[in-house]
């Protein structure tokens, strides 16, 4: 299924700002502009602007819209207030993850879904199929939206410079959103993100995205705002301990293994797809768990490297990079429960050397020394 990668409405804007592109999830996306380390640090200390228009969107509306979402999602969505957003997983009947998504309640009977780029075609097929049994209209709205993420300690201040004086963006709570005009463009501004920093994600019309991105960049220039690529997005989310589909969660790695049990409501009325498999796993205990770690070494653990305990393979690396904040290798691994429960020393094999994993609870860049 080789296809020409799609381009976001910001492709020319990226080129103008010196981006280097990589294929990702069927899209040609900027991996970096000036460098991943610089972009990452700018986001942690000031602010970063990310084009995330490759993410898919879908809308659900109708009398049974919330019943449909509660049937397909692991988290509870029926009680989500209008103007609020919630993270949830979509699971298959065996408990494997189909996707992890954000659900926005845009009205009493209407929702907006934000889907992972690479999963969007599969999600649309899967959700369309299940929606047919509910009194609701499900629609792929991916072509209707560009998406920009403005993240970092100065993000709210920068966005405020483009907002009407009647609106106080700083008052929008986490996981809430407002419909607003910023720099004259109508959009949905959501106090969410994927970096572990404060900030907003903006959903707007594709034909207004480049002008808005440039307006943000100009508005934030004196505060240190930098355009950031997918490289920094990945290292930021890993430091923060946020899962990436295909790494910490997948068809093989359930939400319970990934430590996302807080987003799985086993007692939800009427159940949901995958509920029985996940309830059985919860009762028996997950056979393996996702852990995060730091290496006290210069060598970097990379995805698929083998994790061992006393010479025996007990798991594998899921994600690995160097933390630009602590200048040490960090990552995540899937490790057998027995090895974790025994508190055994875990090592990763990097080119023939066994390097000890120091397990740590994210955010990995904010641990006490």
């Amino acid at each position: 299924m080789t296809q020409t990668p799609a381009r976001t409405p910001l492709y020319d804007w990226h080129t103008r700002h010196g981006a280097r592109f990589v294929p990702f999830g069927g899209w040609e996306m900027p991996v970096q502009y000036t460098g991943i380390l610089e972009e990452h640090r700018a986001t942690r200390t000031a602010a970063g602007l990310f084009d995330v228009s490759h993410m898919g969107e879908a809308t659900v509306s109708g009398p049974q819209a919330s019943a449909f979402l509660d049937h397909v999602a692991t988290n509870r969505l029926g009680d989500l207030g209008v103007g609020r957003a919630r993270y949830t997983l979509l699971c298959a009947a065996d408990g494997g993850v189909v996707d992890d998504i954000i659900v926005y309640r845009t009205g009493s009977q209407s929702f907006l879904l934000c889907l992972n780029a690479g999963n969007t075609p599969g999600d649309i097929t899967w959700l369309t199929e299940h929606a047919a049994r509910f009194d609701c209209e499900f629609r792929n709205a991916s072509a209707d939206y560009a998406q920009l993420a403005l993240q970092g300690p100065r993000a709210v201040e920068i966005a405020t410079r483009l907002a009407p004086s009647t609106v106080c963006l700083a008052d929008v709570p986490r996981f809430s959103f407002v419909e607003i005009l910023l720099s004259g463009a109508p959009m949905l501004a959501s106090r969410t993100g994927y970096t572990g920093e404060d900030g907003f994600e903006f959903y707007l019309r594709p034909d207004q995205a480049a002008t808005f991105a440039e307006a943000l960049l100009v508005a934030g220039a004196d505060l240190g705002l930098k355009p950031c690529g997918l490289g920094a997005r990945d290292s930021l989310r890993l430091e923060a301990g946020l899962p990436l589909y295909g790494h910490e969660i997948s068809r093989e790695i359930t939400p319970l293994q990934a430590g996302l049990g807080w987003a799985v409501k086993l007692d939800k009325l009427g159940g949901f797809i995958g509920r029985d498999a996940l309830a059985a796993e919860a009762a028996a205990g997950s056979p393996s768990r996702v852990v995060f770690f730091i290496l006290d070494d210069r060598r970097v653990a990379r995805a698929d490297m083998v994790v061992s305990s006393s010479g025996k393979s007990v798991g594998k690396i899921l994600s690995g990079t160097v933390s630009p904040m602590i200048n040490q290798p960090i990552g995540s691994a899937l490790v057998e429960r027995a090895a974790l429960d025994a508190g055994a020393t875990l090592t990763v094999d990097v080119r023939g050397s066994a390097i000890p994993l120091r397990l740590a609870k994210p955010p990995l860049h904010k641990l006490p020394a």
Partner: protein
Amino acid sequence: MSSVPEDLRYTKDHEWLKASADGTALVGITDYAQQSLGDIVYVELPKVGTKFASGATFGVVESVKAASDLYMPIEAEVVEVNSTLESMPELVNQVPYVGGWMLKIRLANPASVDQLLDAAAYQQLT
């Protein structure tokens, strides 16, 4: 655009080699290579005295995104490694042809340098 100094020799794997009259040479990776790799965070180099065949893996360079093997341009013995890269791997990004050098080698056969690409031929590959 990446720089390709006239006075160096190159490989298709994006290493450069600067030969001296005394039969030794410096080895590093090209400007094109460092740009493609992005921010370099670690360079793993061999021990002094190690001998390598032409094309053998002599080390690894780790960027934020990935680890990449380093290939010996020519049959040689390592006589010195750039230990400054242990604490400042970013020199490979900043000055790939100067402070970012990786190895000083003694060539098994100094005449074999002529088999490497010259700047014009390497430029065609980038």
